[in-house]
């Protein structure tokens, strides 16, 4: 029941709309089903299987909007939820930023759904975790990990004739491997639309390799170093930059605001090697073809060879500024280069290989200065070779400054942010003068 197909969703929403008496009405239905396993100390700790289905109704009179929801689906319940939203709309103050609902739009079909992932069961999840555990048990390491899959759909219809539907799947896996003494740790993270691409055995072997290679880490002085960021480290760092919002920039309170007023649109803000875009049809990282504002999503370049190419405009802000609305990114792809991580190491006289970053927080939104730490595998490079594992550092660095200091890029990989669990396509990168500010004893 939680996953309705396009026709079922359309029929349900049509029925709900038929009860509406408001000036404008938007109805949406979304459902999901999925499960997760969490393991630690080489055994399952918690696991769950969760399904939900919800109906949301927004009624509008002028600029007064009210929203109500229900999770019962008999006719009486459907009419009741429409009436409730209408009552709430009459109570609500007018929202001066409210934009009238859109009429019919045409949306291409997305490629976000995969039947393999949708077919996962508690047993298939348990098998994938068992494979991961076989690696750590054999290597006398302790594993803690998390595997989660979900299938979800959402559909929206309004009284002006707009209808949109999307169905998608997602699976993410992450594992931390630690030695018994607690002196070394490794990590791997993967995310896919299609679970058949997920190999928990190989991912855990990579994490285990990081852990065994980290035994005997030495402390070196903090300071500015050339770093090679693996995709999972680069992803988390850059995730903090992917808001290309015109309004905050024009209001003067964004890293994209310009001195003296206006925005940095058209400015060379980063190195020429940096190109960042969104594309709902990227086969490795697909997204829905429509956004919450009811507009179609298309390929959009945000940073083109280091130049700020586009800023996103909400429908309200676009209307106020007399420009075309542009939805913000639903996915992020950064173009890469051809340099492998091995080649990056080989060309480095003195530098550091970074496996993962952790606890990144904004220090100054004006410059996007971030602080955070390295974690789960940090290695010192000298004369083109990894010399020894080193103790973790805290860094204070801005991704904008970092992307001005790009020396080389590798092939983009789908990786997940270790905090938001969102997926991105980001290349490994070699960056000069990355600022480490203090040592951490953490393993």
């Amino acid at each position, binding site marked *: 029941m939680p996953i309705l197909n396009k026709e079922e969703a359309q029929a349900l929403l049509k029925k709900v709309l038929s009860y509406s008496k408001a000036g404008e009405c938007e109805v949406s239905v979304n459902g999901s089903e999925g499960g*997760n396993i*969490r393991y*630690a*100390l080489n*055994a399952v700790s*918690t*696991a*769950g*299987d969760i*399904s*939900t289905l*919800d109906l949301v109704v*927004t009624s509008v009179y002028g600029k007064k909007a009210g*929203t109500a*929801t229900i999770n019962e689906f008999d006719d009486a319940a459907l009419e009741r939820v429409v009436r409730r939203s209408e*009552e*709430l709309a009459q109570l609500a*103050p007018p*929202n001066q*930023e409210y934009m009238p609902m859109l009429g019919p739009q045409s949306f291409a079909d997305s490629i976000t759904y995969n039947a393999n992932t949708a077919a996962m069961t*508690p047993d298939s999840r348990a098998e994938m*975790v068992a494979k991961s555990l076989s690696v750590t048990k054999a290597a006398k390491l*302790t594993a*803690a*990990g*998390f595997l989660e899959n979900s299938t979800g759909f959402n559909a929206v219809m309004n009284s002006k004739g707009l209808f949109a539907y999307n169905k998608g799947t997602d699976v993410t896996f*992450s*594992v931390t491997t630690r030695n018994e003494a607690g002196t070394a740790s490794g990590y791997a993270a993967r995310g896919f639309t299609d679970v058949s691409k997920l190999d928990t055995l190989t991912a855990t072997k990579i994490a285990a390799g990081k852990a065994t290679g980290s035994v005997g880490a030495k402390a070196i002085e903090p300071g500015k170093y050339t770093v090679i960021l693996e995709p999972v480290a680069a992803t988390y760092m850059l995730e903090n930059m992917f808001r290309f919002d*015109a309004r*905050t920039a024009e*209001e*003067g*309170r964004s*890293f994209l605001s310009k*001195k*003296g007023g206006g925005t*940095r649109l058209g*400015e060379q*803000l980063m190195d020429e090697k940096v190109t960042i875009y969104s594309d709902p049809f990227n086969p490795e990282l697909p997204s829905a073809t429509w956004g919450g504002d009811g507009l179609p999503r298309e390929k959009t370049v945000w940073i083109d060879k280091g130049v700020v190419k586009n800023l996103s405009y*909400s429908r309200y*802000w676009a209307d106020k500024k007399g420009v075309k609305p542009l939805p*913000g990114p639903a996915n992020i792809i950064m173009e890469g280069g051809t340099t492998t991580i091995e080649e990056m190491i080989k060309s480095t006289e003195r530098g550091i290989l970074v496996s993962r970053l*952790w*606890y*990144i*927080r904004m220090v*100054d939104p004006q*410059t996007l200065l971030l*602080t955070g730490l390295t*974690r789960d595998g940090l290695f010192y490079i000298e004369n083109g070779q990894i010399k020894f594992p080193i103790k973790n550092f*805290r860094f*204070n660095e801005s991704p*904008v*400054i970092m992307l001005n200091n790009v020396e080389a890029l590798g092939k983009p990989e789908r990786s997940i942010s270790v905090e938001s669990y969102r997926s991105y396509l980001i290349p490994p990168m070699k960056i000069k003068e990355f600022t480490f*500010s*203090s040592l*951490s*004893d*953490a*393993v």
Partner: protein
Amino acid sequence: MRRRDFIYLSGIGAGALMLPNLGAFGNPINPLQALDGIDVRVKKELADAALTVAKAKGASYADIRIGRYLNQFIITRENRVLNVANTESFGVGIRVIVNGCWGFAASNVVTKEGIAKTAERAVAVAKANAKIGGEPVQLAPQKGYGEVSWKTPLEKNAFEIPIKEKVDLLLSTNAVAMQGGANFVNSNLLMVNEQKYFASTDGSYIDQDVHRIYPAFNVTKVDSAKGSFETRRSISSPVGMGYEYLSPLDSEKVTGVTTRYKKRYDILEDIKAATQQVQEKISAKSVDPGKYDMVLDPSHLWLTIHESVGHPTELDRVLGYEANFAGTSFLTLDKWKAGNFNFGSKQVNIVADKTQVGSLGAVGYDDEGVKCKKWDLIKEGILVNYQAIRDQAHIIGLKESQGCCYSQSWQDVQFQRMPNVSLQPGKSSLSVDDMIKNVEKGIYIIGDGSFSIDQQRYNFQFGGQLFYEIKDGKIAGMLNDVAYQANTQEFWNSCAQVCDDRDYRLGGAFNDGKGQPSQSSAVSHGASTALFKGVNVINTKRKIG
């Protein structure tokens, strides 16, 4: 603390802020609906049905939580209301032990048939996982309480206050900022009501009605000629109270360089001060990096306590259960067993307390049916205890759980979460003015800012809202671009003084993040102003483009 929810809710730098993430907060409903709880007799019947099915399918233990989670958000900027949203999330979560392994399932179908199916799914999950093996779950004994109830002590249910009154307060707040010369202001009011019913095969049937409220604003001043901007956030705190928190009382104010608040918050007074201070911040002197004595106000220190004391004393982290996400802890079991691990100076006394009135963590019973309590974590600087739940209690030699189990909703599994963790006031009479008089070169910080700490909780960095330079015992003016870095153990050992209980206040957060899938928990931290000697301060100013 989780970052993303905070950004969503506070609207800092968020141009397109509208409805908060519905996935995390439930669905919008009419504000006039769903205020009355569901009849306990109905809930007991449903709960018994679930427990019977779980036992019949082979569970050696089962519990069910029937939860209705209500939120109201009022979100404004300048002279506009961006959203009034009421959300409700209703459903059941069932947890079982089968063959020594946990299983959990949740559903929004709250009928006897739906609940029976959910119980069966929970059993299937446990059976699948039991095949992987591992140590069987060992639960600390817990007597059934029978049918009991608990409610947050409150004077005014915030959900019953007319929307217009709340909207008017926020718009008046914004007007003070705009009239005072601010360029932008966002203000929000968040209200939470957890109506949760817990039942277990131990014989407990616990009905609880939990309320929390969080008023907050962020005022922005832009200097476009310089291409810079500054913000000053409210120094309110989220609290476990009703709407009475927003009725100012002089007796609950702490005066000084800026007024701070105990159990009553004066939002109109705070926004007036904030609007002046954000202007001062723009032209404040950039800090010279180096060693300073830090005087930390409770509106700031709560977050340092949260990150550097609250998290490392969580037993699940100590044991390795959080290794893949939040991390482990430097406070390993051997340090606790030794009985003399020097966490901090003798001035450092830190308690865990799930009973403190007005705090975010206060409930009658936790989410696995254990009555809440208070205990010492750090006593005169020595590590003496952790935070544990039923399946961990035996590991630290306890015969019963400490009642730290929590789930953010019916659809998430409950696990160990932080109780309120608070620094006890100093025993000798000491005011903030007396403390500052003896500081030669220092910085006084009010309000919390940027925060980051490593996965074992050694190395941290914190910012703040207001920074004042202290020179030769006197406040010498405002500073900017300040952050301090320290090692947890060195920092708490540098604690030289803690003000007395006249200065004691709670700070806290709605959005402490932990677990996979990540869950939010609300928690308070109390403190009086404290002095830390010789802390490393860095300058955070950078230039781009």
